[in-house]
């Protein structure tokens, strides 16, 4: 198990290396440079800036320079906010992005799993139809549509929550709900299917025939076993929430890092873009390992070697 874990974690390094190379060369294939602006800078000024930032060197040298910095923890200068380092920009926003992602994750689990269990226990009766309708709405509503709806109803209409910003708990509610809508639906559907599968297992029939009451069978045998496959989708869900929040961050003016991603591409802010891509790729790869380990831990039938 330990060696399996070590191998999996070490494998993240070549993955990140490959991701960084692909992103780096793709990014430099984008025409234009960080100095393009409404007012064109004179050619000699551009040349001086390029020299100052090392952008006049061959690409592979630039990559080595970037990678050297990255390994020592220096993510380089931001080409747009020229007085700031990428480390500071990421440092300022990452806590907010993670907070938003984790709150949305918690909400999806806390609502999604009970919703799925509720549906399965009332299979083909009203709890099932209610829960299934909620998940259909969740799946059919893109997060940006849900965000617009929430703003129209709860900010503009009822005035309960602010339309944007991040100054306190009342600012957190709408972005979290908008982000969690889709994962709630996915988790609920998955939990429901898994519960229904477990219901037909022999050990449930055995437990019931031994005279174990309804509630004990449900909590001790059904829910516990049904949640095992659900764990596998939690990793991708958390990764989706942390990396996929950029639209929600933009709509609600949340000061996280996600909202910089699109502007970093369109403004050719190379170092910021590299840092964010690597950060996101690491999050996805790391969470995958966590889920696999967790899976083996809760399901003794699974053994890695």
């Amino acid at each position, binding site marked *: 198990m330990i060696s399996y874990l070590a191998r999996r974690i070490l494998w993240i390094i070549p993955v990140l290396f490959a991701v960084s190379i692909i*992103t780096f060369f*793709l*990014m430099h294939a*984008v025409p234009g440079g960080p100095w393009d602006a409404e007012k064109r800078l004179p050619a000699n000024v551009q040349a001086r800036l390029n020299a100052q930032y090392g952008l006049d060197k061959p690409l592979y040298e630039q990559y080595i320079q970037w990678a050297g910095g990255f390994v020592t923890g220096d993510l380089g200068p931001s080409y747009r906010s020229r007085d700031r380092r990428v480390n500071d920009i990421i440092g300022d926003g990452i806590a907010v992005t993670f907070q938003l992602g984790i709150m949305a994750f918690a909400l999806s689990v806390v609502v999604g799993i009970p919703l799925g269990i509720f549906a399965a226990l009332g299979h083909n009766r009203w709890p099932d139809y209610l829960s299934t309708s909620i998940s259909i709405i969740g799946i*059919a509503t893109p997060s940006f*549509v849900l965000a617009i709806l929430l703003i*129209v109803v709860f900010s503009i209409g009822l005035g309960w929550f602010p339309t944007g910003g991040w100054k306190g708990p009342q600012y957190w509610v709408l972005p979290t709900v908008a982000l969690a809508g889709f994962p709630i639906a996915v988790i609920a559907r998955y939990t429901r299917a898994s519960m229904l599968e477990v219901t037909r297992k022999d050990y449930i029939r055995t437990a019931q025939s031994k005279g174990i009451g309804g509630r004990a069978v449900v909590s001790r045998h059904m829910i516990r076993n049904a949640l095992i496959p659900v764990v596998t989708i939690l990793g991708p869900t958390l990764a989706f929430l942390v990396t996929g929040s950029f639209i929600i961050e933009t709509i609600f003016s949340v000061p996280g890092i996600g909202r910089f991603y699109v502007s970093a*591409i369109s403004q050719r802010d190379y170092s910021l873009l590299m840092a964010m891509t690597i950060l996101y790729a690491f999050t*996805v790869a790391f969470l995958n390992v966590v889920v696999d380990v967790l899976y083996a831990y809760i399901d003794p039938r699974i053994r890695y070697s």
Partner: protein
Amino acid sequence: MTTSAASAQQAAVRERPSTGLWRDAWGRLLKNRLAILGLFLVITLIFLGVFGPLLAPYPYSQQDLKAVLAGGHGPLPPGSPGHILGTDQLGRDLLSRLLDGARISVSVAFVVQVVIILIGVPIGALAGWFGGRTDNFLMRFTDIIYAFPDLLFIILLSVAFRETVFGQALDGLLLVFVAIGITSWVTVARLVRGQMLALKETEFVEAARAIGVSDRKIVTRHLLPNGMGPIIVAITLGIPAAILAEATLAYIGIGVQPPRASWGSLIAEGQKFIRSEPHLVTFPAIAIALALIGFTFLGDGLRDALDPKLKGKQ
């Protein structure tokens, strides 16, 4: 499948006239009400995507300036004369623009899946059939693609190639299709590989090999058709994901170029008038919702129909 299930199926085969996996699956699909609803929505969407521009009352970019000026310089509300669903602030008919959006969504739905099949099936099949080093190499490659944050990578690709000939093709749509496809084939590749690995060890493949059938024929005649069910399900369920990705990109202004508009870009435009003219957001949002629901229900129905083990679970 266990032997008892197989013999039970054999018994069933004797009772009914000529029945195969596909006919069985079709029968099960028709009994599933949600799947029928899904199928209906999907067929409607495809019909509108193909014939929409012929049915549209106006070309999607035609402005009815007279009506807009008469109506107080703003978007016309639904039910205005000549514009059932109203217009945007430039006097372009919303129904016509939605129908053009249907064409975009339908092409996303299918072209992206073609890209996914073209990349995912060969990679998965090669990895599963050859195993060993080939398998290891190909699966590590899928790990790398998997670690890329999809939507972000699609944005990067779209911006990188926007100015090229390739980026301009089909009003900028081709690039979006390929970018979404390139980031989404991993699931299908893994599935094909898994199917290959499982089927390779089955008795009918052993029998085929024993009577001297060639490798290529075993893969194409036995393995792929037998492993087809889960692959079709994965591809059908990949369609709503692709439609959602395209709408999201269009919402942030990447993808199809104006004056054409995908449902996502219609929502982005309509958002500015959300207080006075909410229909500019609601109608495209309903269109997206129906498309997503249709393909999701159909995919779920296909999964239940093609996997008899799950029968009755729905």
